[in-house]
């Protein structure tokens, strides 16, 4: 587990002394995802994680777009807003910017966040309002029954692409890093412990955090992440990024390491063939995002090796804080606004 990287994310959100458990965060609504859907595991992980934060439940809000994943808020016994397709980051921005006392979570899918809502996502990331964005990536449109999505691999055969999809997918981590995100991480529905560790850091980060969660849609894209789950392949391809640790993965003879490539970027080499000193030590706090970006490219093209964990966690002032400071500054400079003075400002004349 990485150390708590900045810890200010929740400083303004009121805490409770009452003991909370998973049950406190379950709403009375029946969960309606398909049996076996990865969303269940993520829901349970979030519900079991939140008590750890010790926040007052009424100060937590889940805002979502549209998609299977976006039904999430209905199942949380917190405040919730199930909005419209792609717009959750915008709605959450208004809420979080005007209410710094709230812990605001955005739940979105790969279509919701990266197709229709792509513009809002990138601007939310660069703007850095205090939000946690959980992107459920099943690499498919679940709710509309299985069309390819902007994270589907090229050649994906779906109802809308019977001869295979033509367009290159987004890598959500690369996109987020390119969009000036301060906190970028990836985790997976099946690994609750890892999910918890990432959520913990995301919550602790003040500003916008983006957590991509690989999520299995067992109906329309089953097994998309099996290589990261099956015991035979799991440890050979999963690169677990941990701050301050050398980046190594694989087992036995196949043990591998990541080093800076002489050609630029990073590369995977057999561990036996490199000196320990050459192995890249992961630094999530590196101000320059280019190494994080290079790491995010390691899974391209076909899941040969897939980094998970926190790619980047860098502090910078949150938009809502700066906005509040401007309001305070204005009031301090000229005094709090008085309506009568405002209306009578400018050139006036009196008619008797």
């Amino acid at each position, binding site marked *: 587990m990485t150390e708590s990287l900045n810890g200010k994310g929740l400083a303004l959100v009121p805490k409770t002394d009452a003991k909370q458990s998973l049950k406190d965060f379950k709403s009375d609504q029946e969960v309606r995802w398909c049996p076996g859907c990865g969303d269940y595991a993520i829901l349970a992980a979030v519900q079991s994680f939140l008590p750890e934060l010790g926040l007052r439940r009424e100060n937590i809000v889940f805002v979502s777009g549209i998609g299977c994943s976006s039904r999430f808020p209905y199942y949380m016994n917190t405040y919730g807003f199930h*909005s*419209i397709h792609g717009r959750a980051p915008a709605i959450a921005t208004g809420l979080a910017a005007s209410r710094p006392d709230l812990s605001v979570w955005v739940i979105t899918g790969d279509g919701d966040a990266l197709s229709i809502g792509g513009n809002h996502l990138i601007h939310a990331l660069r703007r850095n309002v205090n939000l946690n964005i959980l992107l459920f990536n099943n690499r498919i449109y679940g709710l509309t029954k299985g069309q390819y999505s902007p994270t589907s691999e090229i050649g994906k055969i779906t109802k809308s692409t019977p001869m295979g999809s033509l367009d290159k997918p987004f890598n959500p981590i690369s996109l987020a890093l390119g969009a000036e995100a301060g906190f970028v991480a990836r985790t997976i529905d099946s690994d609750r412990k890892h999910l918890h560790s990432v959520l913990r850091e995301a919550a602790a980060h003040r500003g916008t955090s983006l957590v991509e969660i690989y999520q299995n849609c067992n109906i329309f894209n089953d097994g998309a992440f099996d290589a990261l789950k099956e015991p035979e392949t799991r440890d050979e391809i999963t690169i677990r990024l941990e701050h301050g640790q050398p980046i190594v993965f694989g087992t036995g003879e196949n043990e591998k390491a990541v080093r800076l490539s002489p050609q630029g970027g990073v590369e995977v080499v057999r561990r036996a063939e490199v000196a320990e000193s050459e192995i890249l030590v992961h630094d999530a706090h590196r101000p320059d995002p280019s190494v994080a970006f290079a790491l995010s490219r390691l899974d391209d093209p076909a899941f040969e090796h897939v980094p998970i964990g926190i790619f980047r966690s860098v502090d910078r002032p949150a938009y809502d804080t700066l906005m509040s400071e401007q309001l305070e500054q204005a009031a301090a400079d000229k005094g709090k606004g008085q309506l009568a003075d405002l209306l009578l400002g400018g050139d006036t004349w009196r008619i008797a």
Partner: protein
Amino acid sequence: MTKQVQQLDRVIIRFAGDSGDGMQLTGDRFTAETAKFGNDLSTLPNFPAEIRAPAGTLPGVSSFQLHFADHDILTPGDAPNVLVAMNPAALKANLGDLPRGADIIANTDEFTKRNLQKVGYATNPLEDDSLAEWRVHSLPLTSLTVKALEGFAISKKDAERAKNMFALGLLSWLYHRPTEATIKFLEAKFAKKPDIAKANVAAFQAGWNYGETTESFSVSYEIKPATLAPGVYRNISGNQALAYGLIAASVQSGLPLFLGSYPITPASDILHELSKHKRFGIRTFQAEDEIAGVGAALGAAFGGALGVTTTSGPGVALKAETVGLAVATELPLIVVDVQRAGPSTGMPTKTEQTDLLMAMFGRNGESPVPVVAPATPSDCFDAAVEAARIALAYRTPVMLLSDGYLANGSEPWRVPEVSELPDISVEFTTEPNGEDGTTYLPFKRDPETLARPWAVPGTPGLEHRIGGIEKADGSGNISYDPNNHDRMVRLRQAKIDGIDVPPLEVDDEDGDARVLVLGWGSTYGPIAAAVRRVRKDGGKVAQAHLRHLNPLPANTGDVLRSYDRVLLPEINLGQLALLLRARFLVDVISYNRVRGLPFKAEELAGVIQDVINSD
């Protein structure tokens, strides 16, 4: 030489020049002087969408018209008495509006061969006799300015630029305007460039002195202050009044204002204005697009703010889905549409009333939204407060339909006392409202207003989820039950239909008119001015003006049916007429012009007279 002073009751001046000539600034300053002097006034800025269209061309002409009087007036005037033409293009573009006998003050320095050719003048109209019907004052404004500024530490270009201040000085002399405020203004505007400030003040004073000494003007004019209702007045544009109305609504409701907006002509000035008033706790958020602007405003409303978004027609089109979400979630939201000429980009700086049906119906599903439209620039203040009252009391998005004419036009405004403003405070729900005393039912309605309770995040025990999916009446849980949906559709409609709005008032002097002329929005001034003309000529006509377009005042049908004929002028192809015909089966007579400009009073007077005569 002592000059003659003549008394006038009203004057219409139009300043016209190239976009780069500073005509809007000149007009604004003359307006400020006139307001200070105490005349009633009304203004009409008219400028191209391009920041700098090619110099000297017809599309590059920018103008500012000002009507001022010793009595109360209603419009910026149909036809200027004076045209200030800074170049041939300005003359050519505006001559058609100029009645015979009007004064033309032309800057001869710009009437060069090249400039004349640019706009298709074969010969110089100032020198041939083509302007014989007008009183032409040909003055070398540029060279007079440059001469007056000899010895100032500024470039020739900067000296030439000050010609608009020379013109302003001349006109200020001609109409006996007070000058101190303009001098102060110039000193403040160019505070960082003292040489430029001094030069502009000097040009302004040189223009004044020129008037006093030249033989081109043998008469100057006095227009006495108007006797308006007692009170403190200031001059205000529609956009500024609207912004102030939103601030007042925030203060009077006790809710912090959150504005989510994306720049668009002619609405941007509301964003600019509100951005200046952070000390009122106002958050202004320039979003990545209109959808994010309204989304952020709605998110803030969920959190207990007064959520507002400001835009023009193209932006309203983008916001439609989110406004629908506000209808479904029943959250308060103000959507300001400063209408402009469409479709598509249309004519961004020109006015129109063509978004009424979009405001009413431009969303999927049965999605009723209240619509309020201000009548004059200063009325934008009250209309904004009224929109907030409805949004907050009924938990609904409200469309506030201003337009380009109101937005940029200005008039004297009697500043209200804060104590005169309505109390629109809201109480958030803080206790469970279920029968069992522990559950919270977010869609349990107030029996009177049908508004749902508003519990904001941070309130313990009332955690709940809302969204765009159909909700069970009361509990707000997801529901696909057919009968529940039918009930919710009708409840949402009934809530809007039941909004308390004041009755439609009719101005029918003697009570024996057979023709009613009805209007909405910014046509108020021209219609009222036309009605005055008709009455002065002995015609009988009643006037009524709709400020609430949804719901309509309860007596609307009765009013329409009590006249033989109802005439409805609109700057669209009959959008309100369509609604009234459908609702009341009244055969409204539509009069429509869609030229991007307000109606002229004379034109409407003729139309009214024709309807009266058609008996």
